[in-house]
Structures are given as C-alpha cells and as structure tokens.
C-alpha cells in the first residue's frame, strides 16, 4: 500500500508540473495584453506599464513562471487587482461556504441514492425501478441551473418555504444557515444523486448474482441480513470510487449553484472575478480547484485499495 502511495505521488509530479504550466499560461494566452485587459484601454500607457511591472509581465516568461511557482509553493498566489486582497486570503475566506454546500450536496445525494438504488435493484422491473432508472437519465440531463430555478419557483416563489438565495454563516445562526442551505444543496446534489443511484443499482444487481449471496440464503439468513450484512457492503465498493470522482462535479456545479443562490463561496468568487477581469484570483482558484481534484482522486484510489483487499496495485 505504501509502495503504491509513493508511486502515485511520484506520478503526480509531472502532472502537477503540467497543471501549473497550464494555469500560469492562462494569463499569457489572452489575445491582448493582460494589463490592458485588466485596466481597460482608457487608462494611460504609464498606468498600464506600472501594472505590467507589478504583475511582473515585463520579465521573461521562464523567469515569470519560476517566480510564480516559487511564490505559490510559499502560499503566495499574488493579490487581487481589484481589491488588492491576497488571493490566498480571498479564497480561504470563501472556502467554508463552498465546503459546507459541497458536503451537504454529497450527503443528501448519498442518503437518497443508496436506498433508492438498492430498492430499484431488489425490485428490478417494478414501477419503482422504472422510476429510479428514469431519474438516473433525467438527473444528468437537466442542467443544475434549471433545477435551481425550478426549486426557487416552486418552493420559494409559490410556497414561500425557503428563501430564494443569500447566506448566513453558521456562526451567526445555525437554523438560518441550514434553512438557506436546503435549496442550493438539492440543486448541487441532483446530478450526483442520479449517478450514485445508477451505480448502486447496477452494482447491487451484480452482487446479488454472486454465489455467496445464494449460500447465505441457503444457510437460512434472512433477506435483510443478506442485503445489509453481505450484499450492500460489497456493492458499495465501486460506489466509493464514483463518489470520489464526483468531487470534481461538485466543484463545477458550485460555480453555477453559488451564482444562482448568491452563495458567497469560491464558485461565486470565480465568476465575479471573470467579469472583473481579476486574473490573479482566477489563476488562484483554478490552481486550487485542480490540486484539490487531484488529491481527491488520489484519496479515492487509496480508499478503493483499502476497501477492496482483492485489488492488487503491485
């Protein structure tokens, strides 16, 4: 296992290098000079030159890259060109809101998908199976911004059960925070619920065909014991991988969901920064999200190897 971890970390090095290169290149791929783009063409050439100097855009590219990577490794991703706030601070301030939303979305997704997928598999061909299967395709087809809009329309505008947006921190009021969390979490978690339901169902169907299930039944174990004690435990192993991969989908979805519900997380910061042409913030967010995604994938692989001792990574 340790050997596998070391090998995976070693493989991550060239990928991390390429990722840093891509993120660094983002600013330099702009069709016009980034400093002009940030300030606008109405600014004087002196102001633009000063910003170019401040952002080190007047240095040779390799030097700029080395300085940027060195600073990034020391936790310095530069400053926002709009607010002058350090990029790391801007991201960390908004990270708790995004984490809360992401965890809530994944939690409701797993809590709904595992029972639904299991029941669908146990009652294969029944109306509930047809409904669950339909939901798995529909859930990945309806854009999450449409789900958000529908939820706002029905539950906020018509029934006035939940606020249509906004955020209260957990420190200020836990009930208000949770009340405002419901709609964004459902919006963000619908796609992952659909995928998890599908995987639980197919994985459960596969496990139910295995000999050890028949043996357990033949030895007199009740269906409940067989399902909970044997089938579900094994059926959930591939689901763990899928849930891990969904961290990427949650990060993507957060951009849209936070924008719809005015949720002050990293996603909303990213979109606001794009419109504000705040390239250091955009670079910082893309780099943070890419590395979070890489580490999440590594964690998933390790969890998979740990959960399933039959898999050898030698």
């Amino acid at each position, binding site marked *: 296992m340790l050997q596998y971890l070391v090998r995976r970390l070693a493989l991550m090095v*060239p*990928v*991390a290098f*390429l*990722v840093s*290169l*891509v*993120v660094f290149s*983002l*600013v330099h*791929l*702009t*069709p016009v000079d980034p400093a002009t783009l940030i300030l606008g063409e109405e600014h004087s050439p002196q102001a633009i030159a000063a910003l170019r100097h401040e952002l080190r855009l007047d240095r040779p590219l390799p030097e700029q890259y080395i300085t940027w990577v060195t600073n990034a490794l020391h936790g310095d991703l530069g400053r926002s060109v709009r607010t002058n706030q350090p990029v790391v601070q801007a991201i960390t301030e908004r990270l708790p809101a995004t984490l809360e939303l992401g965890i809530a979305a994944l939690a409701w997704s797993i809590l709904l998908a595992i029972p639904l997928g299991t029941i669908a598999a146990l009652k294969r061909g029944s109306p509930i199976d047809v409904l669950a299967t339909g939901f798995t*395709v*529909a859930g*990945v*087809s*309806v*854009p999450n*911004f*449409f789900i958000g*809009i*529908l939820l*706002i*329309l029905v539950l906020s*505008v018509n029934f006035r059960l939940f606020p*249509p947006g906004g955020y209260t921190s957990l420190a200020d009021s836990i009930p208000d925070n949770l009340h405002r969390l419901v709609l964004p979490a459902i919006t963000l978690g619908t796609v992952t619920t659909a995928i998890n339901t599908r995987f639980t169902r197919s994985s459960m169907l596969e496990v139910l065909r295995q000999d050890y299930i028949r043996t357990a039944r033949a030895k007199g174990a009740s269906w409940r014991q067989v399902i909970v004690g044997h089938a579900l435990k094994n059926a959930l192993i*591939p689901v763990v*991988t899928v849930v891990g991969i969904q961290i*990427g*989908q949650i*990060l*993507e979805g957060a*951009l*849209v969901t936070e*924008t*719809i519900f005015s949720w002050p997380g990293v996603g909303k910061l*990213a*979109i606001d920064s*794009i*419109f504000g042409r705040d390239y250091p913030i*955009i670079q910082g967010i*893309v780099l943070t*999200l*890419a*590395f979070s*995604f*890489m580490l999440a994938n590594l964690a998933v692989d390790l969890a998979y190897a740990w959960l399933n001792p039959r*898999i050898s990574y030698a």
Partner: protein
Amino acid sequence: MSTVYGAALPDEVAETPITERMSVRRLLATYPRVAVASGLLLLLVLVTLFAPWIALHDPNATDPSNSLLSPSIPHPLGTDELGRDLFARVIWGSRVSLPIAFVAVAVGLLVGGSIGLAAGFRGKLTDLFLMRLIDAILAFPALILAIAIVAVLGPGLRNAMIAIGIVQVPVYARLMRAQVLTLKELDFVAAARALGASPTRLIVHHFLPNLLNPLIVQISLSAAAAMLAEATLSFLGLGAQPPTADWGFMMNTGARFLNNDPWLALGPGIAISLAVFGFNWLGDALRDALDPRLRG
C-alpha cells in the same frame, strides 16, 4: 483493470473488443429505446433545419409595447422583456446549441482520437508523454477548465466552442488508446501484421472499423455533455451574447423574472433538458445494444 467508456472493467472483460455489428434497421427494431431516443433527436434536427418555417416570428424582433405577455395563441410561450416572441427564440435556440455541440464533439474526436490512436499504437515514450498531457487536462474539473479558457479568450460562442472542444479531448484520447491497446493484442491484428500490413492499413482497415461502436456511443454522450456545457457557459454570461437566441442565455434572463413571468425560464429550460436527455438516452441505449457484454 482496464478502461472502456471511462468505466473500470475487469481485464478479462476488457480484452474482448466490442465488434458486433448490426444493421440500423435491426438495431431500431430490436431496441425500442434506441428508436425512441433517435426519434426525439430526429425531431430536434428537423426543428433546427426548419426553424424559419416553424417559428412564425423573427426571434430578434423587439416590440416593447408587447413585453412580458403571458402565453397565448399568437405567442405560445409568451414574450420576453423586450417583447420578442419566446417560442420563436426557443426554436431558433436549437440552431445555436446543436451546431456548437457537434463542432465541440468533432474537435474532441479529431484531436483526442488522434492523440489516443498515436499513444496506443506507438506506445513507449510517445504513450508516456501524450498520456501525461491528457492527465494534466484531466486534473481540471472539465467545466472549470472550460470556464478558465473562456475567461482568458473572452466571452462569446466561438470561444465557448473551443473551450468545450478542448475539455472533450481527454475522453476520446483515453477511449481510443484503451481500445487500440486491446485490439493490438488480438490474433487478427497479429495476423495482419505478419502478412506485412502497413501501420496505415492496420489503422484504417482493422482498428477504425472495430472502434466504431464505442465511438458512436461516446459521441452521443459527449454531445449531451457539450450541450450542457454550452448552456451553462451561456447561462453564466460567458457563452452566447445578446441578442443571440440561446437557451442558456435565455434562462439567465428568465431567472430575473421568476416572480411574475416564470415562462421566460421554463421554455428554454425544458428545451435544453429534452435535447440533452435525448443524447444521453441514445448513448445509453446504444451502449446496451451495441455491446454484447451488456445484453441481458
């Protein structure tokens, strides 16, 4: 473990390439899901082709005196804040989403497919280098990479199309590589090689025909993903710009009028969902139909 369609399969299963062929007629007759999904998409294509005849109004003609009208016979989906006929805009919206999805998928298929083919066929250093490049693209959540690319190139449909095409590249590269690696080891390829077949002949006559089935499935699923990505970018204001009749952008506007005029968001939302559903459903049904291992 090996990878087919991005899902992990046991080695003994992945060793068998998906080679079974059947005529389109038999496919549609045997698998009603394929027929229904194809019908839905055919309808979408017809709407796209005949948009000027189906939509009776000019999608961009403003009429402030008739703004925000409820659905009625002359305006089946009502009018927007500028008095434009929403039904006409939804119908014309297919002319934006569908071509963008196809171009983005074509970019992904051509670039990603070539990378995967080269990596799988040449192996060794070529494979190592190309696959690390693909890993680097895969290190980014797809939509975040697309948004970052659009942020750099500037909002607009053309740039959105480029961004969506780039994020499709790894899917095809990995699919193509996995299939080529499997095919390379099979007896009929070894026989062709022993008979002196050139690399071009091997690729054109032996690899590509056997890659067709998984590619068709992936193209359908990718088209759905591309349409969703385009709609999302436009919803965020990074794709289509006014006055283009685009489903995502129309929803962006509609979201501002939810309290009193919800139809502004509902029409385009249902249109996107149906189109994406059609492609996803077709991809799913084709996967079941064309892959002999998945048949019940």
